[in-house]
C-alpha cells in the first residue's frame, strides 16, 4: 500500500498526548493503538476465488437473498463464508435465483424448498427453528397435540442417530413421538392414499372430458409446495393443469380439526396440529392464508389446519434435547383413524412415486380391477434421472402417457415444452405429470438430514431403496383404494371422492404470483 499524498507531518497519538502532559495514560493509549503503521482494516480473509485482480470475473460467488420473514429458512450471517454453494443450489439445481429480472418488485423470490440448507457448508442457512412452539404446546395441558409424519422421514431420521443412510425407522419414530408426549400420532401416508383417491378421481374426470375447458390435460401433481409456488411464480399460465388436491399434509391437517375432532369429541380449538416433514416448504405451505379450511368449516377462521411443521432435522434435535436414543426404542404403531397406509402412499416420498401410486389406483378406478404385477413395479418412473416418461396401456382408455420430473431445473424442461405445444395448438403429450421440487423427491427434501454435503445421489439412492422396500416387502397392501381407514373416512364423513365436502376440505386453489417478479425470458 502506497500513500501517494505528501508525507504527513507525523503527529502520533503518543506524541500528541505526551505533548499535553497526559503521560500516565500515554503509554497505555499508545500500546492500545499499537505502533503498526498499517492503515485500518484488511486483517481478515476471503475465500480464494475473490482474491484476484478485480478486473476478472469470479466463478462461484456471493449468496442468495433471504427475506428475514421467510417462513421456511433463516440465515446466521456470522457463519456465512460466501462460498456460493447456496447459489449453486438455488440457481443451477432449482432455477429460481437468477431467473427473474431486476429491479425486483416487493418480494424476495423463494420457493421455500430449502435445498440451500442442504448445500450450505456451515449450515449458516437452516430451517426456521420452531421446536420451541411444539415444546410449549406439549407442555400445555389444555391442548390436544396431534402429529403426523410424512412418508420420507421414516427412511432418513435414523441417520441423525448414526444409522446408515436409508435406515427404516418408522416404528421408532412413532415411539419417539409418543415418548415426547404427542396425544395422537398419525401417518401422512393415510392422506397420501386419500390424495390418490381424490387426485385419481380428478384425473379420470379430466381424461373423460368432464372438466373440459376448465381443467385440461395433462394434470400436474400438487403435493410438493415448493413446486406449486414455482409454478405460481414462473408458469401461472399453466396453473389450470395443477390438480386442485391439497398436499397430504394439508389434507390431514384439515381432517384432524374436523373428522378426528368430531369422532373423538374434541374441541377443534383445543387441538394443536404438528407435522414432521422432510421439507422446509411445508412450513410455508401451512401458513398459506387459505389453509384454514377446517377452521372455516367449524366457523373459526383463525384456526390453521396445521399449526407447526417441524423438519426431520428439527425432530431429531428435539428427540436429542430430550435425551431419547431413537435407536434403542421399541417400535410403536400409528394411532387408528388416520394411521393406516399402503405401499402406494409411502412411495410418495420418492420421485415418481405419486405417479406410480396414482397409476395403480387409476387402473382400478377405470377398470374396476386391480392392476397387473408389472404396474406394481413401474421401473421407468423410478430412479434419479431428471426427467422420466412412461406409456401405459389401460384397458378401456388406451395409452396413457405420463412424465415425471424432480429438481425444478428439470420441471422447466417439461413446462417449456408444454407451453410451446399449447402455443402451437398441439395436443397434450402427456396425461399426467408428476413434479417434485427436490432432486430425488421428498427423501432428499430440504428438511432431511444432511448426511452428505452437498446431498449425494448415493444417499438419495439408499433412501429410495428403503422406500421401495417398504412398499414391496413391509406393508401388507400396495393399493391406495384398499386402505380401509380411507374407505371408512368416505363412509363416515366425506361420502365419496370429489364430493362437496371433499372439495371444501381437501381441495384448494392457486395464486398467480407472476406479479411479484419479472420472470426472465427463457433462452
Amino acid at each position, binding site marked *: 500500500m502506497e500513500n501517494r499524498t505528501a508525507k*504527513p507531518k507525523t503527529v502520533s497519538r503518543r506524541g500528541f498526548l505526551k505533548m499535553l502532559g497526559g503521560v500516565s495514560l500515554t503509554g497505555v493509549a499508545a500500546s492500545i493503538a499499537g505502533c503498526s503503521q498499517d492503515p485500518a482494516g*484488511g486483517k481478515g480473509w476471503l475465500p480464494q476465488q475473490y482474491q484476484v485482480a478485480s478486473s476478472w470475473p469470479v466463478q462461484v460467488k456471493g449468496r442468495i437473498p433471504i427475506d428475514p420473514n421467510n417462513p421456511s429458512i433463516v440465515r446466521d450471517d456470522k457463519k456465512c463464508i460466501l462460498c456460493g454453494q447456496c447459489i449453486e443450489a438455488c440457481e443451477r439445481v432449482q432455477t429460481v435465483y437468477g431467473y427473474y429480472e431486476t429491479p425486483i418488485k416487493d418480494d424476495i423470490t423463494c420457493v421455500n424448498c430449502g435445498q440451500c440448507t442442504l448445500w450450505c457448508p456451515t449450515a449458516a442457512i437452516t430451517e426456521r427453528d420452531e421446536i420451541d412452539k411444539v415444546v410449549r404446546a406439549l407442555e400445555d395441558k389444555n391442548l390436544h397435540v396431534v402429529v403426523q409424519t410424512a412418508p420420507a422421514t421414516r427412511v432418513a431420521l435414523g441417520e441423525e442417530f448414526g444409522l446408515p443412510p436409508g435406515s427404516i425407522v418408522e416404528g421408532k419414530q412413532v415411539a419417539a413421538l409418543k415418548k415426547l408426549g404427542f396425544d395422537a400420532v398419525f401417518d401422512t401416508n393415510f392422506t397420501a392414499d386419500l390424495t390418490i383417491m381424490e387426485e385419481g378421481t380428478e384425473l379420470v374426470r379430466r381424461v373423460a372430458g368432464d372438466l373440459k375447458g376448465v381443467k385440461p390435460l395433462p394434470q400436474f401433481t400438487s403435493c410438493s409446495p415448493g413446486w406449486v409456488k414455482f409454478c405460481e411464480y414462473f408458469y401461472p399460465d399453466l396453473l389450470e393443469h395443477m390438480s386442485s388436491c391439497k398436499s397430504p399434509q394439508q389434507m390431514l391437517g384439515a381432517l384432524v380439526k374436523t373428522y378426528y375432532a368430531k369422532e373423538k369429541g374434541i374441541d377443534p380449538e383445543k387441538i394443536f396440529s404438528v407435522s414432521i416433514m422432510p421439507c422446509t416448504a411445508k412450513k410455508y405451505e401451512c401458513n398459506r392464508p387459505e389453509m384454514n379450511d377446517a377452521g372455516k368449516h367449524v366457523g373459526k377462521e383463525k384456526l390453521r389446519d396445521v399449526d407447526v411443521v417441524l423438519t426431520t432435522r428439527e425432530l431429531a434435535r428435539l428427540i436429542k434435547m430430550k435425551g431419547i436414543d431413537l435407536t434403542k426404542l421399541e417400535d410403536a404403531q400409528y394411532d387408528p383413524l388416520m394411521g393406516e397406509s399402503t405401499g402406494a402412499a409411502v412411495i410418495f416420498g420418492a420421485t415418481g412415486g405419486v405417479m406410480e401410486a396414482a397409476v395403480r389406483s387409476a387402473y382400478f378406478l377405470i377398470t374396476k380391477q386391480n392392476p397387473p404385477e408389472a404396474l406394481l413395479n413401474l421401473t421407468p418412473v423410478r430412479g434419479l434421472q431428471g426427467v422420466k416418461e412412461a406409456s401405459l396401456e389401460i384397458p378401456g382408455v388406451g395409452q396413457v402417457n405420463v412424465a415425471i420430473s424432480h429438481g425444478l431445473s428439470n420441471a422447466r424442461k417439461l413446462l417449456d415444452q408444454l407451453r410451446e405445444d399449447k402455443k402451437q395448438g398441439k395436443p397434450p403429450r402427456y396425461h399426467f405429470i408428476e413434479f417434485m421440487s427436490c432432486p430425488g423427491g421428498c427423501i432428499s427434501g430440504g428438511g432431511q438430514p444432511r448426511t452428505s454435503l452437498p446431498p449425494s445421489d448415493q444417499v438419495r439412492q439408499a433412501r429410495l431403496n428403503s422406500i421401495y422396500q417398504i412398499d414391496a416387502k413391509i406393508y401388507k397392501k400396495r393399493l391406495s383404494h384398499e386402505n380401509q381407514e380411507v374407505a371408512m373416512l368416505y363412509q363416515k364423513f366425506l361420502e365419496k371422492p370429489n364430493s362437496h365436502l371433499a372439495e371444501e376440505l381437501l381441495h384448494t386453489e392457486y395464486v398467480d404470483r407472476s406479479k411479484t417478479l419479472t420472470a426472465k425470458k427463457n433462452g
Partner: protein
Amino acid sequence: MAKGVLVDITKCVGCGSCTVACKLWNDMKFSEKEPTMGPEAKLSANNWTVVRFNEVKKENGKVWRFVKTQCLHCQDAACASACFAKALQKTKDGPVIYYPHLCVGCRYCMIACPFNVPKYEWDKTFPLVSKCQMCSTKVAKGEAPACVSVCPAGVFKYGERDEILKEAKATIARDSKYVQEVYGEKQAGGTSWLYISDVPFEQLGFNTKISSVPVSTYSHNFLKYTPVVAVSWGIILTGLYHYTKRRNEISKDSGKNVKL
C-alpha cells in the same frame, strides 16, 4: 488514477453478500444490536458497510429497494482536510484511508463529514475512529474492494472513476427507468462511490441537500484555528476520557455490558 465504484441500485436483490465480505476481510464481528441489513441497518464503528432496506411507493404499488451504504470516499475529502494529525488521508488510488497510529481521537473528521460516515468506537476502552477503507490494500494490488468482488447480482462496476462515471451517465441516458442523476458525481465535490437508481434518491435515505462545493473548502478555512482548538480538545479528551466514556455507556440502555 482514482478508482471508483458504481452502484446500480436497480440491480440489488438484497442478499447482503457485500456486508459479509466486509466483515470477513476486515475481520470484524456481526452484532445483533447493530444489524447490517434491513430497515434498521446503520453504519457504525463495527459496520463499515450496511445494506438498508427501503419500501417505497412506485407507480401503482410498492417496491423494495436496497441501498448499500459505506464511506463514499470523497475526491476532496473533508475528513482528511479536517484531520490535522493526517490520520485520514486521501490516496491517489481513490480510497480515503485511516491510520490508527496517527489518530489523536479529536473527532473533527466526524464533524466534517457531510455524509456522517466516520464513527467512534464508543464501546472500546481506547476508542479510535472507524470507517470503510475501500479495501485500500486490495485496491493497491489491482483488486476490487471485498464488497464489490462478491456481488452475485452485478450491482457494482469497479474501475477508473472517470470511466465509471461516463458509463453511469450512458446507462441512465439509455434507460428512462433511471432517475436522471448520478449521485456522487457532484455531491461534496464528487465521490469515488457513485449511485444510479430508478427511485428518487431522497426516498432512499440519501442526503440530497449536499452542496457540490467540496466541504474541505470550508474546513480548510476553519482549520487555521486548529492548533489552539486541538490542544483544548486534546486536554478535554484525555483528562475526561473515562467520564465521557462512562456517560456514553450509561446513556445506552444496554445494562448488560457496562464497563468500569
